[in-house]
């Protein structure tokens, strides 16, 4: 695999092919969002901006998208709050049940989604709870929390305790130390955890499908529509979300590298 010729040409070529392979369905979805399709979006019938301009004309797409955003935001806020608290406790405090807590955080990530979904659904069923947006949010907070803990934990661990000590030496109350020192320092970790959490919630289909009842989310809309052909408007929503997410990632990366450059200059 790493013969001299391979390292020089074959490996870069191979990598480019692999990347192209990863991009194919994305490009396809994007291109077909401009298709002047009638009912289904199977055959290319000509270029149009119509689906982008009149996205919401297609029944249900925008409602499903709106629900997904709302569910994503609420789940993210709750999961990030609960997860951050656990992350701080896990790094900063020694307690007996530590390994048990770690295991409890780890297990949801190691459980297949279909098991998480069916388990919650069977519990809601035995409780007699009506499924809807509320049950979807409960489910999403559950599976997002562990990912938040893992992401924030790394940040807490890299935090210099001397900074908080300095705050206490200057007679700051514990609350002041937390809000003025710890929290701002944890912010990048919390932010990336929140973004991850939103992405997981927004794109979740399997767990949602088991716990949504009549409520519609964007992935569920796509799944339901797949039986008769997904309308081009769904491609529009998917492509728009994709472009937005890429823009966010690029902005964060560019800002990060600018900051690194600035810090390097100061030294």
């Amino acid at each position: 695999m790493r013969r001299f010729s391979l390292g020089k040409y074959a490996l870069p070529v191979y990598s480019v092919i692999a990347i192209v392979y990863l991009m194919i369905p994305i490009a396809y979805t994007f291109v077909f969002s401009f298709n002047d399709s009638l009912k289904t979006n199977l055959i290319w019938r000509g270029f149009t901006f119509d689906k982008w301009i009149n996205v919401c004309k297609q029944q249900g797409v925008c409602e499903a998208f709106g629900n997904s955003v709302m569910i994503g935001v609420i789940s993210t806020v709750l999961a990030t709050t609960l997860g951050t608290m656990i992350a701080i406790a896990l790094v900063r405090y020694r307690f007996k049940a530590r390994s048990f807590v770690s295991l409890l955080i780890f297990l949801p990530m190691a459980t297949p989604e279909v098991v998480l979904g069916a388990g919650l659904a069977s519990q809601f069923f035995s409780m007699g709870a009506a499924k809807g947006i509320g049950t979807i949010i409960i489910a999403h907070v559950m599976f997002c929390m562990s990912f938040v803990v893992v992401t924030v934990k790394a940040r807490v661990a890299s935090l210099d305790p001397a900074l908080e000590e300095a705050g206490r030496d200057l007679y700051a109350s514990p609350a002041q130390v937390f809000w003025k020192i710890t929290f701002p320092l944890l912010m990048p970790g919390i932010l990336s955890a929140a973004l991850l959490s939103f992405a997981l919630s927004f794109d979740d289909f399997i767990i949602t499908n088991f716990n949504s009842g009549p409520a519609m989310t964007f992935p569920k809309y796509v799944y339901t529509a797949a039986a008769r052909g997904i309308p081009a408007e769904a491609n529009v929503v998917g492509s728009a979300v994709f472009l937005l997410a890429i823009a966010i990632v690029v902005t964060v990366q560019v800002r990060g590298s600018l900051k690194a450059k600035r810090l390097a200059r100061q030294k």
Partner: protein
Amino acid sequence: MAFAAFGHGGGGGAANTTAPTKKSKVALFLLLPGLIYLGLFFMTPLISLIITSLEVPDGSGVMGSYAYGFAIENYGKVVTQFWPQISHSFGYALIATIAALLISYPLAYFIGVKARRFPLIQGLMLTLVIAPFFISFLLRTFAWKQIFSNESPAVHFLQQVGILGPHDYLVGTPFMVIFGLTYNFIPFMTLPLYSILERLDVRLLEAGADLYATPATTFRKVTLPLTAPGIISGTLLTFIPIAGDYVNASGDFLGGTKTAMIGNVVESRFLVLNDYPTASALSVLLMGVILLLVGFYAKRSGTEDLL
């Protein structure tokens, strides 16, 4: 990203200097809400699933009504009845995981080792690897279905070249399902591999060459053992979701009548047929196998502390 879940390193951390008496109270306050939540909506559902898996029809003949029982034989029944689907789940997951590893390792090696001197290319390629996460998983899978649909140029071409017979198609075949599964989970394999290859000390490879090892030997004796933790986390991160997936194998996406996996059965039994005991028994079975696998991996790699 998600791969941090089975990550390596990280962890640990400095102990704090808060007064010891206060410690436990604060820790409890920080932990309790989240732990209660997981208790209520993660642990209890699993227990509920186990209880449901042992239930029996309550005799009323009404669809979806079951009575508590201790029908351990439910498990034997689902294994014999759904053996094809069970074997698809683990068989497809195994093949797709190996395929994802074979595709991802060279890619991650290139990004993490060869592209080190070019941060711009490295950043760009890494962004492209995670790009699929930003577009709906279902839309991507459906795109493959359209690209390889029966009337598609791609299938016509394969028929003309003779790779496919004149009446052979791709959608609905196990090949297509495995193809889709591999595609969908490649980033979960590439990212943990990248994160460990990025830290690989190339001087060790040079040392191998200096000691007259062939590149193949250096790879086998140096690179592979050093990157084993990445292979382990990548394998788990791919295998687990694939074994439980039912979108790729669904008849509306890449699968057909003969490709159903455990997830497809659980979905239809639970949501369509209201056959809760069967769906639950299959879920518990799947969970059990996954836990055995994770436990085995944790033991082998010596990382008791997976988190």
